């Protein structure tokens, strides 16, 4: 089962390597990983998607909590939450494909953020499924380069992850 973990981490050198090392060391899987400082600059927030049954997720959570620099861990998938991923995608756009790709981009509410004679760079935000669907809609031939941020997640309504 896919799970999305939100981790508050001391914003210190080496802290992230302990989190990643833990996953490697205990044979846990990291599907996507996303990290940046929060509004409190002493904290970083990691959103990490992984897979595993309930026991495994419980073990992952417990072992993360054992790391001294991990301040809080929440399994966002346990409750209502929002997920977004950012994708920058460079596509070949020549001839009549230019208009076709632009239309497709509009349908998915993407933005063209860079243009050359034969290529668009498109920015698209949404759930991972939406980004996958956009790539499929473009057809493989058009795609030159894809960069995805990994999933960021936040609890819905008044659920707040803070100190």
């Amino acid at each position, binding site marked *: 089962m896919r799970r999305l973990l939100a981790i508050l981490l001391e914003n210190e050198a080496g802290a992230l*390597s302990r989190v990643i*090392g833990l996953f490697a*060391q205990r044979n846990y899987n990291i599907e996507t990983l996303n990290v940046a400082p929060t509004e409190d600059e002493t904290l970083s927030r990691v959103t990490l998607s992984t897979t595993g049954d309930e026991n495994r997720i419980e*073990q992952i959570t417990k072992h993360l909590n054992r790391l001294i620099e991990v301040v809080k861990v929440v399994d966002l998938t346990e409750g209502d939450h929002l997920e977004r991923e950012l994708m920058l995608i460079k596509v070949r756009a020549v001839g009549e494909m230019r208009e076709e790709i632009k239309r497709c981009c509009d349908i998915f509410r993407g933005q063209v953020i860079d243009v050359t004679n034969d290529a668009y760079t498109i920015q698209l935000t949404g759930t991972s499924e939406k980004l996958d669907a956009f790539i499929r809609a473009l057809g493989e031939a058009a795609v030159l380069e894809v960069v995805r941020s990994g999933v960021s997640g936040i609890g819905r309504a008044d659920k707040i992850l803070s100190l």
Partner: protein
Amino acid sequence: MTERLSGGEMLIRALQDEGVEYVFGYPGGAVLHIYDAIFKQQRIEHVLVRHEQAATHMADGYARSTGKPGVVLVTSGPGATNAVTGIATAYMDSTPIVVISGQVANEFIGSDAFQETDMVGVSRPVVKHSYLVRSAAEIPRIVKEAFYIACSGRPGPVVIDVPKDTTDPNVFFDYEYPESVSLRSYSPSTRGHSGQIKKAAKALLAAKRPVIYAGGGVIQGDAASELTRLATRLGFPVTNTLMGLGGFPGDTEQFLGMLGMHGTFEANMAMHHTDLIFAVGARFDDRVTNDPAKFAPDATIVHLDVDPASISKIINADIPIVGPAATVLAEIDRVVEAKMAADPDALDQRALADWWRRIRGWRREHGLDHDQRHRKGSNGSLLPQQVVQSVYRATKGQAFVTSDVGQHQMFAAQYYKFDAPRRWINSGGLGTMGFGLPAAMGVQFAHPDGVVACITGEGSFMMNMQELSTCMQYALPIKIINLNNQALGMVKQWQDMQYGGRHSHSTYRDALPDFKALTESFGHVSYRIDQLDELDDAMADVFGAKHKDDLVFVDAHIDPEEHVYPMAIKGGAMNAMVLERVDGRDDIRDDL
């Protein structure tokens, strides 16, 4: 008035403020400033080892036998990497040690400088926490935190990597040692959940075939007296893990002996047939449970541990309790006492008596408590069990016993009956050969008047025998009992049982040294024994007044054919055991 100290001086001063008595270490380029600070003071005694691995085991032995943190000081690069095996050993057995490693100066980190190793990176999977000192001003806070983290909650090793520039003797700082630690992300539990404690007490009283399964957490958590009080009140059978020996008096009827792969028949049978397991500070290690899917089919599991990550990791707990063993056991005991006072039938005494009858039956069928003096080895040779029993008699069961890893370790665990905690010191989790001698040295430093016996084998002994020189320098009166079977006995046993007796690289082909001459060359006393009728007299000598101040090495030539039994049959339940010698049984498979 605050003092002005250099980084190196602050480091040593902080160790003094932590109450450190000994630092086990080895100098080198990156730690020269620190060594100069050591030279200029008297409060901490530095012990010069012969290899950094041994320094970590000494600190570990010191910590295990006292409960106080052991301290290690090594240089960068090879000094640091040599320490890693000892750090991993401490990590697996949750013992508190603080390892200070030198590092190249901050400005050279990452440049592949001479003797540079990323120690924080190398040690990361085997430390509870680690620090890289970025500036000297951080030193007092880091030392304070390191000791707090090493000793609190589930203890473990902490590394402080100290770049040379931060110990510069010409740059001074205001020194003030912090009173307390404030870590928002670390707050180990200090008491158990009261609802869970009540549930546990109720489950204990309702049990008809209970077993208390107690591990190293009882030792590390200083909970032996609380465990003994509760277990005695309930009259429940108690088994200890390899790490838990001494957590409950080993010389009592109520004690089933060690459980697991080489546990007693009665302990393993009781674990298989029980309806309630009360696990205290134990982690359902694979060397205990055998196949987890077949483990204790009828048992309700009550699991008490200070580390939540140990609960429901291998075996799902029905009643988990997170908390320090001593506090929680005392609280459970209060609830049980009250319930038993209010209702004389709170405990099903009849069911318990039936259960004990079954256990005594198993004990009669295959017990370890019988005297081995009348058994004969092949060709009349001495048996390892006889040697351990003789050491037990000669020391009246009161010695600190360290061991290495292999057959001798199991014989020591089976036949030396520990009746107090922190007396049995061995590498259970990592299984580190070479642990025994340096660990015994750490124990002897901590207990100058204590009797310290290192029960080892010639294979393990040779992994750190350079420390005989350190023993000479510090006049450590350790008694080394070398169970010499001229082979890597446990490997050979597996090869006998599962590989058709093909002894692939488990014997030395007559290339062993003359241990008597070897140890005497370091100024130590040496005995060689190979006859049963000389055994007890020799041990009386070794542990008697005559050699009170000597390191004595006993080279005991034992039957090379002897195997350790019982032995769990891999892939079975806990009741699947081999009880006597079988060779070439291919159905006893395992992956060592």
